């Protein structure tokens, strides 16, 4: 097996970083990652599983009566299950997830920038993907 040629691997042109990544950097630089990390809390501010917020959103979205009983909380302190949050906000910080697009929404059409297609109508549920991440300790996929 003869191996001939050399691999000059680089580089015909400069790397130009994209707008989305630079926007993400701008949003996050100077902020602790945790300042943007959300968690689900109950009415007393106690951290509960994210699934409760997802289910609560779905309930309200599909016409469930009464106010929400679980809420997303952003920034501040208190992250572990059962701990009580403080110093943060029930409103997502500006740019939360937006440089990368999505965020949780209780109403279809809220938020995300337009796609190339159009809505076909009919009811839509959310939150059915992502659960396995939590089952493996949450966070990203690493590797």
């Amino acid at each position: 097996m003869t191996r001939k040629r050399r691999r000059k691997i680089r580089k015909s042109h400069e790397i130009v970083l994209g707008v989305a990544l630079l926007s993400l950097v701008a949003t996050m630089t100077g902020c602790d990652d945790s300042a943007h990390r959300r968690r689900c809390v109950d009415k007393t501010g106690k951290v509960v599983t994210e699934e409760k917020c997802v289910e609560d959103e779905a309930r309200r979205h599909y016409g469930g009566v009464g106010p929400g009983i679980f809420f997303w909380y952003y920034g501040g302190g208190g992250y572990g299950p059962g701990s009580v949050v403080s110093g943060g906000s029930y409103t997502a910080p500006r740019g939360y997830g937006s440089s990368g697009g999505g965020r949780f929404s209780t109403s279809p059409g809220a938020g995300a920038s337009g796609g190339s297609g159009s809505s076909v109508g009919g009811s839509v549920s959310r939150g059915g993907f992502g659960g396995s991440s939590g089952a493996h300790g949450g966070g990203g996929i690493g590797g």
Partner: protein
Amino acid sequence: MKRMKIQPRENWQTKVEASGLLYHHNPDGVYWNESAYYLFNSQQIDVLYDAANDLHQLAVKAVQHVIDNNLFTQLGVPEEAIPIIRKSWTKKDPTLYGRFDFAYDGVNPPRMLEYNADTPTALLEASVIQWFWLQEVFGAGSDQFNSIHEKLLESWPKIFRRWEEGSKLYLTCVADSMEDLVTTTYLMDTAIEAGIKAELIFIGDIGLGIEPFTRFTTLDDITIENLFKLYPWEWLLADKYGQYLIQTFDKMNWIEPIWKLILSSKGILPVLWELNPGHPNLLEAYFDGPRGMKEFVRKPLLSREGSNVTVYHEGKEGFHTSGTYGEEGYIYQALAPIPCFDGNYPIAGCWVIGGASAGMGIRESQTIVTNNLSQFVPHRFE
């Protein structure tokens, strides 16, 4: 191959952050480590380049073998995935990327530890961050095994021309991992630079519509036709919406394609060994036990981040890593001769983009098992 100590740049944190590496530290300390780098000669880079190309070809043949011989269960592939894997393979659904992890000492042939074929990360640091580091520290005349960015730009249009004209690419990841968000955002930027309309949606925000037809949707209820997911196929299948993957499969294009699930299973390692016994870039590996090997590791079929790996010395359990994997079973692989440099064990992560060898990122650990806390160390060659 040498490990060279070097003074980190002034304000290196700010510099790497500005280029997108917002996770230069992890809970264990520094993740991006520029207090050292690995130096190669060009022959060594050629060896790595060829190994990644050759092994990708062998891996593709191994997928065919698995499909032809119905070995899905042995690889831990969920039963419900089998028909759509077959479809995806028959359609020749294209792949964007993957990363081989090699044990390499610069002298002996690189040995494949595994193929991160479905959800490889450590991409931005390999593609962009270490290149910027090289330019600043060693100047324009220096070289690095790295055409990852260029090959991404080349690959997206080849993939997209198979899809419906004018359709949009959505990219998804979990919302609570900065690394995944950065990686996905970087890939989105490369798609946009390649001329593709693209938008990111967190995986938990993907909607499911049943009427008038089953579909996955954006927050605007736009039907998703093309989806890049930095989220393992086996997790998608296990999630609540997993049952709808089959119904929607014919109307969607996925990156990575679901046939990559075969390659991301560690079960591909014994298959490769069976098909190519004695191959210099492979390690002996078996499904049913160590078969007389005294120095070996037991790995879960489906796992990530070096979790649930047990190392055996002299046939006895040495140490193991914790985790939540292993339910589907294990494989047994000969212990790789990972070199040690100043107490550090480097793994060469060689990228395959669009089916071709594209570059390398090195991660080093203080043990022989690389995990998600292992440090990324840049490299160059001369």
